[in-house]
């Protein structure tokens, strides 16, 4: 945000100054320097109040033994962090993220597939775009409840399977493997639309002449994808992978609403919420939340290191 405004004021300056080469009066200069900040007051106030202040508070709590409500809290130093890192079982829940990682891979491939197909001339393509994006617009809590009925014994999934002659007697949320796979499938359903829209936007920004030229050269659809689309959308692809990995590490909504973390579906965030609100260890939970934040920052940094964000040059 700061960047664009700063740039704007810089570009304006020479334009204004050209007719009068003499330096502007002092008051005008002050005002010019103040103007961008006046515009920034509202967004900065919101950003600080709702993003940075809570984080700062959380960091502060992570060094205390606060229970979330008592007026008394004691500074305990790094005790929470020592406890966190000496209790390996607190990190075991990251295995559950593996299910969501696999789901993200499937999700990206599927989104890429649909985005490619729908960027060409297909019948009813706007309708299909809508269908694919729609789940992302629904509230996550509603999705959780809908899918609870979907997976119920004799629920939607079972009756649909029965239509095809398959009478399953499977408790979809019954075992850790099945439950986690089902939940990950729900999250594919939910976030596919977002990835799809990102990819579609990127694909459509590729100039149309390139396809025409490729077709004249006799390139088939796969070759067009391989040599035009894939390199053309690389920045968006990298971004999506980063978002997916951090999303998998911090999966929360869907498993929390659907199973509450029972039957081995507990993720790191659910565990943190339970520490804070079931066992009233707000201090420890804040430390855990901060550790998760650091892990995600680290993973993102690693990814940026491994896949640098090169300039795309198709022509």
């Amino acid at each position, binding site marked *: 945000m700061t960047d664009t405004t700063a740039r704007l004021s810089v570009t304006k300056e020479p334009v204004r100054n050209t007719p009068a080469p003499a330096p502007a009066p002092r008051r005008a200069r002050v005002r010019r320097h103040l103007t961008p900040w006046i515009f920034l007051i509202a967004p900065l106030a919101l950003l600080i109040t709702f993003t940075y202040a809570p984080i700062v508070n959380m960091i502060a709590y992570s060094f205390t033994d606060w229970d979330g409500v008592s007026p008394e809290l004691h500074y305990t130093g790094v005790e929470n962090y020592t406890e966190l890192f000496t209790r390996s079982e607190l990190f075991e829940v990251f295995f559950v993220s593996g299910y969501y990682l696999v789901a993200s891979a499937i999700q990206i491939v599927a989104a890429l597939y649909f985005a490619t197909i729908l960027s060409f001339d297909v019948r009813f393509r706007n309708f299909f775009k809508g269908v694919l994006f729609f789940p992302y617009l629904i509230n996550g809590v509603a999705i959780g409840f809908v899918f*609870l009925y979907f997976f119920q014994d004799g*629920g939607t999934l079972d009756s649909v399977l029965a239509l095809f002659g398959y009478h399953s007697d499977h408790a979809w949320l*019954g075992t850790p493997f099945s439950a986690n796979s089902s939940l990950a499938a729900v999250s594919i359903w939910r976030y596919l639309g977002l990835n799809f829209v990102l990819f579609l936007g990127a694909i459509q920004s590729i100039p149309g002449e390139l396809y025409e030229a490729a077709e004249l050269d006799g390139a088939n659809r796969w070759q067009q994808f391989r040599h035009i689309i894939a390199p053309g959308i690389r920045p968006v692809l990298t971004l999506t992978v980063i978002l997916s990995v951090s999303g998998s590490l911090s999966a929360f909504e869907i498993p929390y609403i659907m199973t509450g973390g029972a039957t081995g579906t507990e993720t790191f965030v659910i565990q943190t919420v*339970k520490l804070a609100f079931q066992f009233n*260890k707000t201090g420890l939970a804040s430390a855990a939340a901060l550790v998760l934040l650091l892990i995600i920052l680290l993973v993102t940094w690693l990814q940026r290191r491994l896949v640098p964000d090169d300039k795309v040059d198709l022509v």
Partner: protein
Amino acid sequence: MNRRHILALAVGSALLAVGCTGTGGTSKGAAAEAPDDPAKVTGTIKVLTVRTDLVQDGTMDEYAAEFNKIYPKVKVKFEALTNYEAEVKIRMNTENYGDVLMIPGVIKKSDYPKFFASLGTVAERGEKYRFTDYTAVDGKVYGQTADGVMPGFLYNKRVWQEAGVTDWPTTPDEFLADLKAIKSRTDAIPYYTNFAAGWPLTSWTFVNGTVHCDPRATTKIAEGNPWAAGADLRVGDTLLYDIVHEGLAEKDPTTSNWEASKGQLAKGQIATQWLGTWAIIQFRDAAKKAGADPDDIGFMPFPAQTGGTFCATVGPDYNQAVNVHSKHKAAARAWLDWFTEKSGYADDNLAISPLKDAPMPTVLKPYEEQGVKLIELDDSKGAEVKAIDTESEVGINTPDYRQELVDLARGAKKGSLDDYLKSLGQKWTETQKNMGS
């Protein structure tokens, strides 16, 4: 702003934030005295409650109208919270958490004087009311329940009779045999865990005290291992494990549905659930809605006898308290007293009255006939049990540990019951030692 500045700002505000947290202790120790003259009490008070149903259907307003006949100048407003514990907890970081509220479980007993106004001494309130020691700190009482509750099995009498069971089972083994009879002779699900909702599983903690008829059961938990051989919680948890392990519970617990389960029990699709007296009225209403006979809903004690008689523990439901920061403490106290004594709330909910001299509700007639002994647990060590529980993260009042128990029993999680209960006991006793030292 470069990175160093941001860091400096962060550290600076962090220190500030720690200093600012909390409500301070200015009003600590204030008392809410009962007003002498009803006509002189004035003010608008806000009452926080969990009974969303009663606020929505206007029952609470009817209570308020009755209250206004005696206290004409007090205006009572209600606010019902669906997720009471979580929402009130956050609100209690400010001074605005209603004038009358129910004490959330998270508040440490020793902090009661900082949040609530005292209602009087244990000695004077103990003469008239039950359960005073549950909210007593240093001889003063800070909360008062409007209804007493008792844990027990809600069951469908018709289904149990169809299975050929007429007498209440007296041992866990007999109970299991009866459930098996229900499974083989009727279409009903013998026992419903309500695994998905989670909280109904926490009622199994209230087995405590009923197995050995010991009023000092809570103290025993505070000082010993709750899962030692023969201990109350072990007996209860083993029964739950066996029920699920023998296939006597619903087929897919993970998608069970609490709201639907009420009607299913009323109609006889479910035979039994371990809950408490508070649930009877809800299940009867569900029976009326489902077109079934409300009188089919029965209530029975835990299958264990001491000296040939059943035992049942009576305890308080949520305790109401007056906000220590309230500007209308007299009005708040007036409402609290009136609601406890004169509103008829306990009767309306088929619950046990908090007044010592009140008769037992009619639904508990079978209890009187069978000579079930009612005991009140001594809660003087209740705060310690809570402290050990949260510190050790065992969670006897959270669903997680019994959900794991059910997962073990149905084979979704590997391991044996013995090992599981042993590990719980170890966590518990180690925390006990650490906290004692």
